[in-house]
């Protein structure tokens, strides 16, 4: 399944009309120990680049933006009790939310993994 990345360090994995969103390993390494995640409720409509979630670490609280527009179908309820999954499996079990894409062409503006890795290396 294709995976895309944003300059704000979110990843999105697309599976047909739906997609899963999380923050990258680089993002979690910069945040430090994650202690709380605020997730969007199902049914909420998100716009590309708009605020979708909040991730709070011992250092800071940061917004997580939606890589594309769509309607939230599910938040990762496991993160409520085990937010440290964001640190241990940021690009796997530590996903944030799933959404139904409203405009798949928005994916064209995102980076693939290789481009993102180059981007991170340039920071």
């Amino acid at each position, binding site marked *: 399944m294709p995976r895309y990345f944003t300059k704000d360090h979110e990843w999105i994995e697309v599976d047909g009309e739906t997609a899963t969103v999380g923050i990258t390993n680089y993002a979690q390494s910069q945040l430090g120990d994650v202690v709380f995640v605020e997730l969007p409720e199902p049914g909420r409509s998100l716009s590309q680049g708009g605020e979708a979630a909040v991730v709070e670490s011992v250092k800071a609280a940061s*917004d997580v933006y939606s890589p594309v527009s769509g309607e939230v179908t599910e938040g990762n309820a496991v993160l409520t009790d085990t937010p440290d999954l964001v640190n241990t499996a940021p690009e796997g079990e530590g996903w944030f939310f799933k959404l139904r894409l409203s405009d798949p062409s928005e994916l064209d503006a995102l980076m693939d993994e290789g481009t993102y890795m180059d981007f991170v290396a340039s920071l």
Partner: protein
Amino acid sequence: MRYLPLTHADRSAMLHAVGAATIDDLFVDVPAEARLDGPIRDLPPHASELQVERQLSALARRNTVAGTVPFFLGCGSYRHHIPASVDHLIQRGEFLTAYTPYQPEIAQGTLQMLFEFQTQVARLLGCDVANASMYDGSTACWEAITMARRITRRGKALLSGGLHPHYVSVARTMARFTGDDLHTAMPTLDAGTDVDALIDRIDTDTSCVVVQYPDILGRVADLSALADATHAKGALLVAVVTEPVALGLLKSPGEMGADIVVGEGQALGVGLQFGGPYVGLFACKEKFVRQMPGRLCGETVDAEGKRGFVLTLSTREQHIRREKATSNICTNSGLCALAFSIHMTLLGEKGLRGLAEINHAHAVAAADRLAQVPGVELVTPAFFNEFTLRLSAEARPLVRRLADRNILAGVSLGRLYPGEEALANGLVVAVTETTTPEDVEALAAALQEELA
């Protein structure tokens, strides 16, 4: 020696950077006629400390001091006895650490005290968690309304007619800038509260229902049904307590299902002080803690496993989250909270119950006595230490005449609700452990003369 860090060269460099030739250029926007061009007129020459003390003492003597005359004022500020030990203990060195305890290693005294304060407030209000205090009851009430908006994502708040009008006024001022939709009501001069009317008005746009307990007229309502009705519509119940001593006897709002309980803590350990500074109490259910405003202290262990106290959940606050903060009050009423906490500690649970029982017994005796006066009718059948009378004459001018006779008879509803004909004859009377039978007798006799 005065400490003036800037040299002439520093000032010139800064003026040059902003394109101004002189300091005066920075004030060109102030109209010429509004600028001071010499000494302030009518300002008397400097005086010695002794002269100033003499003059201010003479001015202070023109006040009628609460403790020197029969005193029945309440409505949000209560005269209680404060043990001398409270004032002594708040001055101890352990509490003189910086009141903004961002460096826990040098502020353990302050932090531990705030932690104890939070525990006391949470238990008193019947909630899981409390913050380290707000400015006062009215600002705490407003913060609860905005917190309910953040949680429910709805903007319509129903405010009970029994909520202190000054609290309503603060909320109105703030809502002008936030766009919150406040639905307010007037109290009625009768025995019943507006709980049932509020239940009928809750809808799915409602963020919260705000009720005062006991309310502005002293009435006490069971909030359980209101809590259930509020939750059924996905809204929150906010309860406001202006007399925390009442919770020594009454079931707490938290136990009755309130989601957020706020209050004014002045009655415990803090003097009347002409209306401030006071100490706002703020508590809520644990699931809402991240939306709670204000400073929060937590207990933890240090690297060696020793118990210590720190500020916690600071990431909610404005110095970290900027405009997205859930808390734009990153401070607290430290000294008043300390006095509250020390008084609560000295009282203990048993002492607080005892104090509440004395208050209630005195108030019942006073209500019975005053209701015997021709032209006086007791409006509130159930109350804690404050009740409302309906007089056969307008209360506000009568209170003024009694003040001239050195009796502070209570708060007239005409003062709280100017122009409201239906409330004009109402008088709210507060009675505490400081009220003597002689005080009550003096008020009864004076009322009898004035109403004859």
